[in-house]
């Protein structure tokens, strides 16, 4: 029992630290990559190649004055960033970074838990994340925030459906909701091949869920200042940023798990494979951000309801045929 | 991972509702291709769908008592009787709606779609023998009727009616659900036959959970049939709803609710009879008293009919309480009679609806019968039948209900029933007096619709027919009594 608890606590600390570390450097990577894609150097003042930039950002955010608007609904205003951050952190628990390995003579899984409903758990918890955004928008008592919050909730609900339907294909092929079993089912061929259609739907919807460009209408700066977190400052603002980037990692982790074979790969150790794939997905998202302009609101809704949703249902209908072709049935 | 074997279910059992639902989907598609001027084609399509469904009822009929879907649906003569009744009600409603909804400016295909959905929901409800299917059927029926009640989107009365009906209806559904949950908790099954056999084998008579469950179920279902003290929504809903929908509402959902009351209480809960009978007794008595007495004070005829329908609901409860074969048959017979007289009366009200004139006040009937003697006579027949005087269907229905009550020795209840029929004489005859004696309203014109007048004549004929030659109907009702 004590051994179990110790292992869990160590794992918790290590995974959390790793994710936080990766996350901070993803912010830098994003700015750098965007910079190079736009033929400019990006941040390069703090440390060599700007490597200390995230730390400088962190210190800056810590030291800023924490402003709570006068009219704001205080309790909700304070809770909202936490409600955005907590689900983001919770989802990491089931992301399988690597298989069971032996450390100091004990078998240790490189993931917190392998729930038998893993993928559903991720969906359930991440669907809670929208509360942080909606409540932040509502509690700020500011028109930009409110509009941002409303847009976010409408958008997230619209895209959650297609996202859920898109992974049904994967679940059908792997016959399980457990993340580990899904990876094990991809020993032969990664699901991105038979489920290419589902992959495209999933990653589009996932980017909309993350409020990433081109779906960043809830925080579209040209019209809404900063959307739902307009009124936030200091650490509360930082918490929204944290939540957003942790979510990017989680989503990349899910994409890796569901479609890219998870930790499986030749020569290199599994954990490294997972990280490589995860970072590739992150890079892809940054790439999209640099490439695609923001959608108009009606285009967003049309894409969600009239394109992705029917497409995801068609994907479900196609999956049995695909399974037959690939010999799963 | 053990593969699940999904057996192919016997869909023959649900053939009528299945046909109807498929037809609704077809109609929704077809509606897209029907131009705005030709929306009346939808009415025709709807009638065809219902006739197909009715034909299916006759196809299923010879098979007798068959069940399917793990005993959650049954097709017996009791269910089929009600299904046919709904088909008749729906066809009549569609016929009286066609002109009316055009006048109200709401001539969209969805009207018929929703109506047919409601009918299929009611069909599911009367066939359901599992608490889950019963609940779903009830919600199916109720949700469509809420929408139809609010169908006059720009009329605040209609909006108010729909909102009230919806809020209270949702509340009562929750109460029923609570009752069902407790029932499941005690018996471990949602199937009403299994519930019955469990209760027969294990004495749960004084189990407080069971008592709570019975009370909740009674309260919820009493709401659905608008019995006092759960009637508050009815007058507003009846008044605000489009008149054609009021006609439908007064007959269809009410009949379906009574069918399911009979099924639940007589099939699943006969062991608890001495608990629910006194409650129903009280509800029945107070419904008859309050419904009929308050109706006297109404000036709006739709409200008056609403209160009278509360009284009628109280009357019908007599058959439920008696719980005998004759009691069940009399409930069925009464629903049949009520179908014709009620829809007929509402059809006459619709005749008075013109653009700019609502025509649902009692004084709008002034001199109606002198100007339109034959239609006036029809209205008189409906009124007489609603009172329950010979030679009409209402008389036969009430007589059998009273007979059932007397047979089961509920003398006081029967006495209240007779007494309140006398009270109802007063306000129904008020309308007759207005029609025959009061001065004509100058320039009053009727809606010219052949379908509408046809319905009025047909209903009058049917009311008289059942009243004068009741044997055929009584035997068929007795033959299709719920088998327990």
């Amino acid at each position, binding site marked *: 029992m004590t051994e179990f608890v110790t292992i869990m606590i160590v794992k918790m600390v290590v995974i959390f630290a790793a994710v936080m570390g990766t996350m901070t450097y993803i912010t830098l990577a994003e700015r750098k990559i965007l910079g190079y894609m736009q033929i400019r150097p990006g941040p390069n003042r703090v440390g060599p190649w700007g490597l200390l930039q995230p730390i400088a950002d962190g210190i800056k955010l810590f030291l800023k004055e924490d402003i709570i608007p006068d009219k704001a*609904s205080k309790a*909700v205003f304070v809770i909202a960033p936490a409600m955005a951050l907590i689900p983001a952190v919770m989802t990491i628990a089931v992301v399988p970074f690597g298989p069971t390995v032996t450390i100091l003579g004990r078998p240790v899984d490189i993931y917190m838990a392998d*729930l*038998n*409903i893993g993928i*559903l758990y991720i*969906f*359930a*918890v991440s*669907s*809670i994340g*929208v*509360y942080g955004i*909606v*409540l932040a*928008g*509502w509690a700020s008592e500011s028109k930009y925030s409110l509009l941002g919050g*409303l847009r976010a*909730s409408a958008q*997230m*609900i619209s895209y*959650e459906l297609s996202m859920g339907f898109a992974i049904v294909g994967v679940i059908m092929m792997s016959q399980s*909701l457990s993340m580990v079993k899904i990876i094990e089912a991809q020993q032969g061929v990664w699901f991105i091949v038979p489920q290419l259609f589902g992959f495209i739907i999933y990653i589009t919807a996932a980017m909309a869920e993350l409020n990433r460009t081109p779906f960043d209408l809830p925080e579209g700066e040209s019209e809404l200042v900063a959307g739902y977190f307009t009124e936030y400052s200091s650490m509360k603002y930082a918490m929204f940023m944290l939540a957003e980037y942790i979510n990017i990692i989680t989503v990349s982790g899910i994409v890796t798990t569901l479609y890219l074979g998870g930790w499986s790969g030749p020569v290199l150790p599994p954990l490294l494979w997972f990280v490589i794939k995860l970072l590739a997905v992150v890079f892809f998202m940054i790439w999209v951000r640099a490439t695609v302009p923001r959608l108009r609101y009606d285009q967003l809704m049309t894409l969600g309801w009239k394109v992705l949703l029917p497409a995801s249902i068609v994907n479900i209908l196609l999956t049995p045929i695909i399974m037959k072709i690939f010999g799963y049935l | *991972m*053990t593969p*699940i*074997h*999904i057996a192919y*279910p016997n869909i023959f059992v*649900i053939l009528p509702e299945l046909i109807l*639902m498929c037809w609704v989907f077809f109609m929704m598609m077809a509606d897209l291709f029907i131009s*705005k001027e030709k929306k009346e084609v939808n009415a025709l399509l709807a009638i065809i769908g219902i006739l197909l469904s009715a034909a299916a009822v006759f196809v299923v009929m010879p098979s007798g008592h068959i069940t399917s*879907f*793990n005993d*959650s649906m049954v097709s017996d003569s009791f269910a089929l009787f009600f299904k046919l009744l709904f088909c008749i009600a729906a066809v009549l409603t569609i016929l009286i709606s066609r002109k009316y909804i055009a006048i109200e400016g709401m001539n*969209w295909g*969805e009207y018929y*779609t*929703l109506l047919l*959905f409601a009918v*299929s929901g009611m069909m*599911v409800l009367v066939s359901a023998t599992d608490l*889950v299917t019963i609940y779903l*059927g009830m919600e*199916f029926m109720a*949700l*469509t009727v809420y*929408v139809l009640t609010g*169908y006059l*989107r720009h009329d605040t009365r209609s909006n108010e009616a*729909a909102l009230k009906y919806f809020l209270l209806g949702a509340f009562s559904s929750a109460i029923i659900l609570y009752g069902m949950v407790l029932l499941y*908790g*005690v018996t*471990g*099954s949602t199937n009403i036959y299994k519930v019955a056999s469990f209760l027969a084998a*294990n004495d*749960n008579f*004084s189990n*407080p*959970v069971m008592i709570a469950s019975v009370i909740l179920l009674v309260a919820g279902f009493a709401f659905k049939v608008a019995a006092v003290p759960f009637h508050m929504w009815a007058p507003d809903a009846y008044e605000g709803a489009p008149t054609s929908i009021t006609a439908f509402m007064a007959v269809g959902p009410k009949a379906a609710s009574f069918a399911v009351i009979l099924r639940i209480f007589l099939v699943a809960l006969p062991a608890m009879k001495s608990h629910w009978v006194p409650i129903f007794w009280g509800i029945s008595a107070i419904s008859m008293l309050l419904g009929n007495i308050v109706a006297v004070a109404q000036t709006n005829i739709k409200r008056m009919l609403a209160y009278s329908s509360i009284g009628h609901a109280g009357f019908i409860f007599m058959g439920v309480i008696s719980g005998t074969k004759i009691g069940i048959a009399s409930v069925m017979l009464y629903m049949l009679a009520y179908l014709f007289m009620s829809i007929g009366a509402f059809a006459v009200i619709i005749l008075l609806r013109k653009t700019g004139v609502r025509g649902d006040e009692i004084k709008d009937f002034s001199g109606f019968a002198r100007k339109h003697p034959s239609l006036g006579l029809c209205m008189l027949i409906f009124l007489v039948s609603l009172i329950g005087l010979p030679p009409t269907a209402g008389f036969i229905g009430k007589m059998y209900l009273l007979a059932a009550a007397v047979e089961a020795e509920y003398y006081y209840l029967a006495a209240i029933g007779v007494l309140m029929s006398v009270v109802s004489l007063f306000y129904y005859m008020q309308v007759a007096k207005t029609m025959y004696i009061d001065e004509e309203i100058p320039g009053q014109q009727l809606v010219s619709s052949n379908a509408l007048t046809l319905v009025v004549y047909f209903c009058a004929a049917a009311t008289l027919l059942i009243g004068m030659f009741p044997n055929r109907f009584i035997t068929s009702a007795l033959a299709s009594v719920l088998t327990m």
Partner: protein
Amino acid sequence: MELILFYIFGGIAIIASLGLVTGKNPVHSALFMVVVFFVVAALFVLLGAEFLAAAQILVYAGAIMVLFLFVIMLLRLQKEELRNTSRHAFQKFFGIVLSLVFAFQVIMIFRGGFFKGAKGNFPPDAVKGFGGNTEAVAAVLFTDYLFPFELTSAILLMAMVGAVVLTKKELK
């Protein structure tokens, strides 16, 4: 252990429901409702019904309550407009009396030995036989409850048609 957790979650559920009905601000009430859903999901997990727990959060907390909040925010209800307490004195009195009666009933039920009913059909062993709770739900849903399952989709379709009919600005 399980019992302690049950009492903790049950207690949170009760407190949150009280907050839900007594809260003056609809947004706060909605948030309390989310808490209730969460706690109920936790109770499902305690009962070994993980699938139901996830579905509960996904559907109720994640979708339905977000829509509720959405509507509340759109309506911009202000606290002052919400309660006109003096007008409902009579109803309040009635409500209190009836809830006391109800509380009395519930107490009576507890005293009367509570549940002497039948065991459900799906104790943990039976669920294991299916290979897990997700599989068990699927097995029951697609065989015994196939018809209600399909019927629900028809109801949802109908509700959708109804909602569109009632709210669309211009009907053709």
